[in-house]
């Protein structure tokens, strides 16, 4: 039971990072990334391959951050000048292409067999139970750090500019903001965070295969961010924890239903996710923790 709770909480943290990544780009500059699962996979494979070649785990995570950011720039370079729906379509395609590459480039990714035996940091020293607790602490700490940084970013002039772009990019451009540069930077940073989340996941599971990076993950994270509150890092983190708990709850709830095939139970669970997302969008689009727009500072009245 304890190990189940630790496992679930670690997964919560990993999803919270993905939710922070989506919130940065969606709540920040108003773009959506339907390829989150792809960036998640890129980070996981980057770190698994780097550490597999002998690099220490921290270098692997660094590699995931860098590769994630670079891939983010490549994917968005052609689309960021266009209407937002183009980016949605391109990112969805990107996630699928990443899965195809992971499946087919056996020399790099071992194909559908997946990469096993990914280094678990300090596992030998701490033992199985000790490692799980240590890793949970580490993931939670990273979530806290990223959350604090993104919150700080939100309150900074940079964050205000991002939100100005989200609300009206023409007006922001008119006010002298370099809209395209902000979008590119925000997307690269967001992609890097998703990739870091993937790297944490890879070393947590110590085994990854293309099946771990289904598009369904992206939908989970959209549900997390919408339910938590788009535009608020705390909301994204809360949403991620709630979604994982909801996912686990549907597992127990569907076990009670008699006379269903396993495939029907799986279908019911996925249906519940979809219905939940539609309901949240209709009933509480601002989420549990709605965005707070800070008041504009009072201008000193010029003394005549």
């Amino acid at each position, binding site marked *: 039971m304890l190990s189940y709770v630790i496992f679930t909480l670690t997964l919560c943290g990993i999803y919270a990072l993905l939710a922070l990544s989506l919130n940065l780009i969606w709540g920040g500059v108003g773009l959506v990334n339907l390829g989150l699962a792809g960036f998640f996979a890129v980070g996981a494979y980057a770190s698994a391959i780097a550490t597999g070649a002998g690099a220490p785990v921290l270098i692997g995570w660094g590699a995931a951050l860098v590769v994630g950011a670079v891939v983010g720039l490549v994917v968005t370079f*052609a*689309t960021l*000048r266009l209407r937002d*729906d183009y980016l949605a379509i391109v990112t*969805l*395609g990107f996630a699928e292409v990443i899965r195809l590459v992971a499946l087919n480039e056996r020399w790099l990714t071992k194909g559908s067999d997946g990469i096993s035996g990914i280094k678990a940091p300090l596992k030998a020293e701490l033992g199985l139970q000790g490692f799980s607790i240590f890793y949970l602490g580490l993931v939670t700490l990273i979530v806290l750090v990223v959350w604090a940084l993104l919150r700080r970013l939100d309150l900074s002039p940079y964050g205000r500019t991002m939100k100005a772009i989200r609300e009206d990019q023409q007006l922001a451009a008119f006010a002298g903001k370099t809209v395209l540069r902000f979008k590119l930077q925000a997307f690269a940073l967001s992609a890097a965070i998703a990739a870091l989340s993937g790297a944490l996941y890879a070393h947590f599971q110590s085994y990854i295969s293309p099946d771990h990076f289904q598009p369904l993950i992206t939908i989970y994270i959209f549900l997390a961010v919408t339910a938590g509150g788009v535009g608020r890092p705390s909301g994204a983190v809360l949403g991620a924890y709630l979604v994982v708990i909801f996912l686990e709850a549907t597992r127990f709830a569907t076990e009670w239903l008699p006379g269903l095939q396993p495939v029907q139970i799986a*279908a019911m669970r996925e249906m519940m996710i979809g219905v939940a997302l539609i309901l949240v969008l209709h009933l509480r689009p601002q989420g549990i923790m709605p965005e707070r727009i800070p008041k504009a500072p009072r201008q000193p009245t010029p003394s005549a």
Partner: protein
Amino acid sequence: MTLLLQALINGLMTGALIAVPAIGFSAIFAVLRYPNFAIASYATIGAFAAWWANAVAGLPIIPALAIAFAVTGVVGVVAEETSLKRLRDNGALIVAIASIALNLVLENIVRFIFGNDMKGYDLPLARDLRFGELRIGPQQLQSLALSVVIMAAMFLFLRYTRFGKAMRAVADNPDLARLKGIDPARIAIVTVFLGAGLSGVGGVLIGLDTSIDPLTGYRVLLSVFAAAVLGGLGSIPGAVVGALALGIAEELALIAVPATYRTAVGFVAILIMLTFRPRGILGERAA
């Protein structure tokens, strides 16, 4: 040379099949201005409705296609009215996200009823037709003919009927259309019925060639998007041209890259098109 010619023929054939759901996607995009991801599940539902009519009820393919069109059209309208319509004021991205959730729900309803197993249509076996070195399957030829007929019907509808003209008017300028007394809510319903119905028929045509399962629609979603973007988002003739171009590009690329990368070709084609000519082959605006 034969290799190239064969690739060209195969490309036109697959392109013509993709064109049908791509027209559906573009029609919805042109009138309602959001990318509808749920067309993947509409294609799957159409494929299963026709499979039921054909393999279970024993009907020939053409009535089965009509049933698929009607069933998916109705499913599409009900889904749109219950889960997407009220979100339209919140912007295209929100509707698009809701349509992804809707897609997940509908796909899993199909999975719940029919399971994950592959299913095949009940079709007479036939030998490939040969023209010298070139080979064409009679089933492919029939599907090609069907898709050409469907496309022609769609163009006649848009060009000559009241509803078709009204749809084009709303796509062109919604405010002006309203001033002229066109009811946007009715046009939306007709458009969604047609768009979903065409996606359903597309799912059948694609499934006829191979087999179907609950992911049939999702697998063609990227090709449909690629066709629509290549031709120009929201342009219906563009969807056809884009689909044919995509089909040929896929087949030509498969001479050089492994067949498993078929979907990736569409993605690369989108990136190249968006870099150099974002409005697509026949589109008007992209920024």
